[in-house]
C-alpha cells in the first residue's frame, strides 16, 4: 500500500456523488467505496463525510431512504437523483478540463515559453 494522500479541497462532494452513482450506499459504505476505488490511497476525513452528505441531500443531489444493512441493521441509504447525475456529469467534465490544464502547465519547459 502506498502512502495515503489527503483529499483535495472541494472534491469530496464529487467523489460522494460518484460513489452513490454506482449504487445506493449508507454513509459508512460511501467511505468504504471511495477508499476501495482509490486502492486505499485516499484518506477521507470522517468528520467531513456526514456534513457533505446532508448538504448534498439538502441540495437535492442525492436522496436518502431508510433500509436494512448487510448485517440486518437499520441504516440510511443514499442514492443519486437526476439533478445529482447532471451535477456529477458537469463536475467530472470541469475536473478533467482543469486537470488537463494544470498538467500541461506543469509540463511546460523553459524552451516553450
Amino acid at each position, binding site marked *: 500500500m502506498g502512502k495515503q494522500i489527503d483529499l483535495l479541497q472541494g472534491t469530496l462532494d464529487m467523489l460522494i456523488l460518484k460513489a452513490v452513482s454506482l449504487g445506493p450506499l*449508507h*454513509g*459508512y459504505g460511501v467511505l468504504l467505496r471511495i477508499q476501495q476505488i482509490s486502492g486505499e490511497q485516499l484518506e477521507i476525513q*470522517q*468528520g*467531513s463525510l*456526514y*456534513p*457533505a452528505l*446532508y*448538504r448534498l*441531500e*439538502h*441540495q*437535492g*443531489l442525492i436522496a436518502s431512504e*431508510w433500509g436494512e*444493512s448487510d*448485517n440486518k*441493521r*437499520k*441504516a*440510511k441509504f443514499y442514492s443519486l*437523483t*437526476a*439533478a445529482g447525475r447532471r451535477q456529477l456529469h458537469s463536475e467530472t467534465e470541469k475536473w478533467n478540463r482543469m486537470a488537463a490544464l494544470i498538467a500541461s502547465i506543469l509540463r511546460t519547459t523553459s524552451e516553450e515559453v
Partner: protein
Amino acid sequence: MKLFARLRSWFRWIVKPRQLENEMETEVRFHIESYTADLVCKGVPQPEAMRRARIDFGGIESHKDAIRASLGLRLWGEFVGTNPVGKTFHTEHTEELDDRYEIIGVCADAKYADLRDDPPPTFYVLYQQQKDARHGMTFEVRTSGDHGTLIGSIRAAVQSVDRDLPLIDVRTQTEQIKASMAPERLFAAVTSGFGGLALILAMIGVYGIMAHAVGRRVNEIGIRLALGAQASQVLRMVLGETAWLAGIGVAIGLAASLLLTQSLAAMLFGLKPTDPSTLAGAALLLFAIAMLAGWGPANRASLIQPMEALRHE
C-alpha cells in the same frame, strides 16, 4: 427541482426537528458500529476496536453539530421547539478558538443596523466578557432628571476608570433617533412643501383659466340664459369643463408619477411607489381642489343677468 428539494429539506427540519435529530443519531451510531465491526474482522480485539473507532470518528455531538452547520441550522434548527437556555453554540469566528457561547436568555427581535431592514439573527454578548472593544463601547444611561447636568458626572465616572479614556458623541436617545431619521424627514418636508406649492399653483391656474373662459363667454352665457337655460345648468356646464380640465391633469400627473416615483423606491419604507391608496388620495385631493377653484367662476357665470350680458359688448 433543486429548489423544491431544498424547501422540502428546510421544511422537514422545521416541522420534525426531533425526528431528524434522532435519525442523525442513528446514522452516526451505525457508522461507528460498522467501523468497529470491520476492525474486529481485521483481527483487532473488541475493546481496542471500539476505542479506535471512537477516536478515528470523533465525538458524535461534534458530528451532529457539523451537519447542522453545513445546513446553516446550527443556531435555530437546534433550538426549535426546545428551551435554548443553558445550551451552547459557537460562531464561524470562534470555532477555531473552540470558544462557545452559552445561552442565558432569549429576547425579542429588534431592529439593528437599519430601521428599514428586518431584524437580523442576533445574539448579545455580556460586555464584561467582550474581548474586543477596539471600536469603543456605547453606554445607555437612564435618568429622570436633566440630562445636561448628568454628562459631568458620567465624564467623572469614566475618568475614574481610566484618565485617558475619551467620552465622545454624547447624545440623548431623542437626538439619536432624530439624527438617524434626518435625511428621510428632510426629504419628506421638502417634497411635501413642493407638493403643497404645486397644489396652490394648480388651484390658481384652474381658477384663472376658468375665470378667463367665463369672462370671454359672458355673451354666449347671456344668450343661453335669455333663451331659457337655468342658472343651475350654466353652473353644471362650467363645472363640467373644470372637471374635464382637472381629469386630464390628474391623468397626466398619475402617468408621470408612476414613471418618476420608481426612482424614489429607495427612499420609501413600507410603501410601494405604486401604492394605490396614496395615488388615489393625491388624485382625489387634486381633483377636489380644482373643482373648488372652478366653483367661483362657475357660480359667477350662473349669476349673469341676460340683459346686462347682452349690453356687455
